[in-house]
């Protein structure tokens, strides 16, 4: 690291100091009310983008910019995730060595259920995401788990998302204080600034959706997970929600956590809950 980098350190520390004094912490309501949060969250975006219908938000940056929307429609004629989707469909029906298959691990044989994930598992007392459930199913049947960020997992979740296309997100928070706490931790992670660039998810996806960060148009936080998993031209390949979280962290110079760390599971729980009612549109294509 060249000494030149001393300047960003000083500026980051300075910015932090300024921030600490500039805005006195506001006493937040202590009771956690997810339903009210979700309403406020949706209202914020429908007020900010009055021309957009709620379900448009699931198209991320493409709902924010006409030129991009045209490029997206062009891609959607024969989308680049076509191969991954077909591979996922094939893998999903291929039985494991012990004769069982994914269909035996999931309700309704795994078809049309993606909108209920992630869910809070009261036995485990933690949030369980679709990717985690898939790997647990593999391990329960004597198969090696897939990487959470690579193509196999993305192909499986692509197929499962495809079978749920159009179904509204339906995330439930059971009457269990641990579920409420997981939801609250997810919300806290979403708004907490991190990394040397000192950004939080909200800095980009609440404060400036539709703006550009260099060439990329930022997606609104509402409905941001509805299209997962996504084929990104940037990766020229598929990516799951975990891949998206870890790459976002490293882009703002924060060290990413494990792909299925509790923080990410809670974050996905929060983000999915506040997008309840918006249709699943995965797998999606993105810039």
């Amino acid at each position, binding site marked *: 690291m060249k000494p030149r980098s001393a300047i960003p350190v000083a500026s980051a520390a300075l910015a932090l100091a300024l921030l600490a004094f500039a805005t006195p912490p506001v006493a937040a309501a202590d009771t956690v009310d997810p339903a009210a949060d979700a309403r406020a969250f949706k209202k914020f975006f429908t007020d900010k983008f009055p021309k957009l219908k709620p379900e448009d938000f699931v198209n991320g*940056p493409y709902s924010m910019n006409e*030129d*991009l929307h*045209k*490029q*997206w429609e*062009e*891609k959607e004629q024969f989308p*680049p995730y076509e191969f991954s989707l077909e591979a996922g469909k094939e893998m999903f029906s291929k039985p494991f060595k012990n004769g069982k298959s994914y269909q035996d691990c999931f309700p309704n044989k795994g078809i049309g259920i993606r909108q209920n994930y992630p869910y809070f598992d009261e036995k485990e007392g933690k949030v369980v995401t679709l990717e985690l459930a898939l790997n647990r199913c593999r391990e329960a049947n004597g198969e090696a788990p897939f990487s959470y960020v690579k193509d196999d997992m993305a192909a499986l979740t692509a197929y499962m998302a495809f079978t749920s296309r159009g179904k509204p997100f339906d995330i439930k928070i059971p009457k269990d204080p641990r579920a409420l706490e997981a939801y609250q931790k997810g919300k806290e992670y979403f708004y907490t600034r991190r990394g040397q*660039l000192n*950004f939080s998810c909200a800095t980009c996806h609440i404060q400036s959706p539709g703006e550009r*960060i*260099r*060439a*990329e*148009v930022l997606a609104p936080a509402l409905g941001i997970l509805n299209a997962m998993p996504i084929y*990104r*031209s*940037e990766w*020229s390949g598929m990516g799951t929600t975990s891949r998206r979280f870890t790459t976002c962290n490293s*882009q*703002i110079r924060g060290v990413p956590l494990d792909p299925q760390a509790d923080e990410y599971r809670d974050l996905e729980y929060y983000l999915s809950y506040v997008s309840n009612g918006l249709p699943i549109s995965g797998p999606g294509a993105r*810039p």
Partner: protein
Amino acid sequence: MSITDNGFSATRRLVLKGAGTVALAGLGVISLDLPAAFAAANDKYPEEAFKQKSEADAIKLLYGRTAELSDKVKMDAPEIAENGAVVPVSVSTTLTDVTSIAFLVSENPNALIASYKIPAGTIPSVANRIKMAKTSNVIVIVEAGGKLYSATKEVKVTVGGCGG
């Protein structure tokens, strides 16, 4: 030497030459399809043309002459590419008896991206997804009735995200 900046002198030269050949052809002295002997017409893969750095050399190797800008060639390309790796570009034209269509990106390491042969009966319109190294002019060439027509548009390309 890109088409646009000396477009006028090229067309003037072309017109002169065109007039010249017509006059001579009228006399039945030289055969008209001399340019057709170039790679675009026969079906060999134009290896050399794909190796050229500049689009002018690629076009010369592919067709043996220069093209003139024409509003009959309609190119559809984005203002700002969402990503340089996948840039949807398409072309359509009202010109008749089109025999080949080519796409070039002047700032790419090799300018020539694709050259399509359009047999009789095939509609002169192609859509594809191309790679662009950086902001550049995208040029499309349509060969119709032995003459070359072109359209060009600048497409901006930059890196996304927060960077390093």
